[in-house]
């Protein structure tokens, strides 16, 4: 009893050098791993293609496009929203919307379960770090790497625009571009958090990867199709008798579509990158419709007006990300160390 009391009296005897916060050491190591891994180069190639391919096909068309919009203030941003009409290639933001989930899942699906499989988890956790340092470090590392790639891709596109087409961005456009980058980082981190959750819950990395890519396929490709179908059943616009009814049914079906995070990201991107988009939703009353038609003529929104328009979208995406990450975090903290 006295022994214990005495031991309690001098608990922190060896605080000689406070170790750097554990998550940073974990993140450092994970970044080094990511950057030297094959998947990093594969994904660099994919995103590179996302940037270069639309530019390549559009290099002729874009000059005329650029000259058309020369007089407006958003010529630079056209690079990111231009979709060639003769070939079915999505604009840059559309491509990022589809590829980013893949990136997120690919960088996180084996974060925890591979440590289990290799038998490194008990060793790692027996070091003087907190348990959440492992999840936090891994999440931070994935986010850092993907952000670097995203920034590089946007840099390449901007450079192309400035050098080849001679379009110099205005301050407003730079701000919009940065805001869109931030939105894309949130979009990626949602999927990173989802991948992390899979890696905590599913013990086999291969299964986690399959589930992750399955969900990605569902959301990115079939999602809008399926949700569109459901919306068509719940809110059949064609059956509307009056314009008023048609408008409210359209609004309903749009709301249903927005249950898909991909819709949120795409709408928000469109608003951020195109100041002439003044609304995310089809007007739901005739009065709103008239108002909208009047506004549509050459009206450009300022950045804060656009930001206000997509604020709910951003909040929803952040909330989803936080939910996924929290689920992964809690599960990991409660899991037994050994298999």
């Amino acid at each position, binding site marked *: 009893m006295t022994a214990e009391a005495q031991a309690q009296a001098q*608990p922190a005897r060896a605080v000689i050098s406070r170790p750097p916060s554990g998550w940073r050491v974990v993140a450092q190591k994970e970044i080094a791993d990511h950057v030297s891994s094959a998947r990093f180069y594969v994904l660099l190639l994919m995103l590179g293609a996302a940037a270069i391919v639309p530019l390549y096909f559009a290099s002729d068309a874009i000059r005329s496009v650029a000259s058309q919009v020369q007089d407006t203030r958003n010529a630079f941003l056209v690079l990111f929203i231009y979709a060639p009409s003769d070939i079915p290639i999505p604009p840059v933001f559309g491509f990022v919307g589809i590829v980013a989930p893949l990136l997120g899942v690919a960088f996180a699906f084996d974060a925890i379960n591979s440590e289990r499989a290799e038998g490194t988890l008990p*060793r790692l956790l027996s*070091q003087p770090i907190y348990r959440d340092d492992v999840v936090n470090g891994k999440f931070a590392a994935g986010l850092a790497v993907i952000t670097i790639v995203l920034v590089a891709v946007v840099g390449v596109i901007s450079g192309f625009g400035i050098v080849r087409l001679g379009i110099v961005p205005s301050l407003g456009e730079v701000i919009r571009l940065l805001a869109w980058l931030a939105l894309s980082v949130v979009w990626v981190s949602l999927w990173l958090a989802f991948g992390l959750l899979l890696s905590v819950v599913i013990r086999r990395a291969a299964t986690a990867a399959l589930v992750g890519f399955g969900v990605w396929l569902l959301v990115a490709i079939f999602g809008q199709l399926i949700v569109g179908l459901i919306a068509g059943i719940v809110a059949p616009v064609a059956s509307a008798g009056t314009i008023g009814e048609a408008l409210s049914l359209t609004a309903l079906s749009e709301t249903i579509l927005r249950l898909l995070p991909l819709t949120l990201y795409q709408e928000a991107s469109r608003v951020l990158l195109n100041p002439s988009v003044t609304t995310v939703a089809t007007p739901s009353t005739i009065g709103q419709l008239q108002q909208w038609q009047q506004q549509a003529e050459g009206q450009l929104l300022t950045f804060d007006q656009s930001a206000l328009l997509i604020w709910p979208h951003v909040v929803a995406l952040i909330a989803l990300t936080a939910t996924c990450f929290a689920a992964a975090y809690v599960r990991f903290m409660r899991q037994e160390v050994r298999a």
Partner: protein
Amino acid sequence: MTTATTRPARRRRHGPASDSPSEAAPIRTRALTKRYGERIAVDALDLEVHAGEIFGLLGQNGAGKTTTILMLLGLTEPSGGSARVVGLDPTRHPLEVKRRVGYLPDSVGFYGSMTGRANLRYTARLNGLVEEEAEEHIALALEQVGLTDRADSRTDTYSRGMLQRLGIADALLKDPDVLILDEPTASIDPIGIAEILGLLRRLVRERGMTVLLSSHLLDQVQSICDRVGIFAHGKLIGVGTVPELATTFGDGAAHLEATFLDGTTDPAGALREVPGVEAAERDADSGTWRIVVRPATESVRVREAIIDLGAKRALRMTSLRELEPSLEDIYRTAVAGMTRGFAVEEVTA
């Protein structure tokens, strides 16, 4: 209950605390319990490991050894009871405990794409060791486990034994006061086992640390441990040195082994005449005689009597020795006794 070993005083890094009570028992648990639902993995465990000794935790797979170790490291929360490791509660001060306790997990793993040295560097950084200090510690630890020349190959080219040695180096990096090894010799070939046990003995001598190791391989535990705890169904059913355990759990008999030159007259009758000899039988394969002496305390007198008898009757005896009680026998009697006594329903695989 005294430990017969004297070990050199450990070189102290953290100041003068070597004679404080917490140092006297680096590991101590009181009624430590872990429940998984209905199943009780560790049942009211009272364990005390003294400073500077090698303590062997002995038990079958699933007896609760690993669970106990995880609780000692603060990696699993106990359902009841308390633990003190280096004088601290691992549940409340996990970081401090983990800073001073080196741990070699059961079937330890390393990042296969990194070299042995890079793996250790990661551990060093997690322990707050930087640059030259880290490199120094790494070089020293690698040398101690004899991996210096393979340190710069990827760990996925290592054999199981090398990984195990790297694991020990990994645990030594933080210069721990206590080393906890979970099945350090599992799935290693006999030569590798001998290497690892030799290494452990040397390390304890050189660094003067306290070692707790778990194993289900009994003869190894016997050869290396100062004291042994027998663990079954989450309970510690016996603690002590091997001879102590033999008296507690033995059947009260001592065993002698004798050999005679071929062609001698059958010594059976002569042997059985000696008072205290319960049985004497010839093993057909080896040709040696096994003599059971009861009670065990008579063994010295019986040995003398047999030597006298051999000379008197010209039995041409070539050897006579007392058989060390095998830990395996002790273990078997202990577990059997417990199973009878407690009517344990579970069947361990």
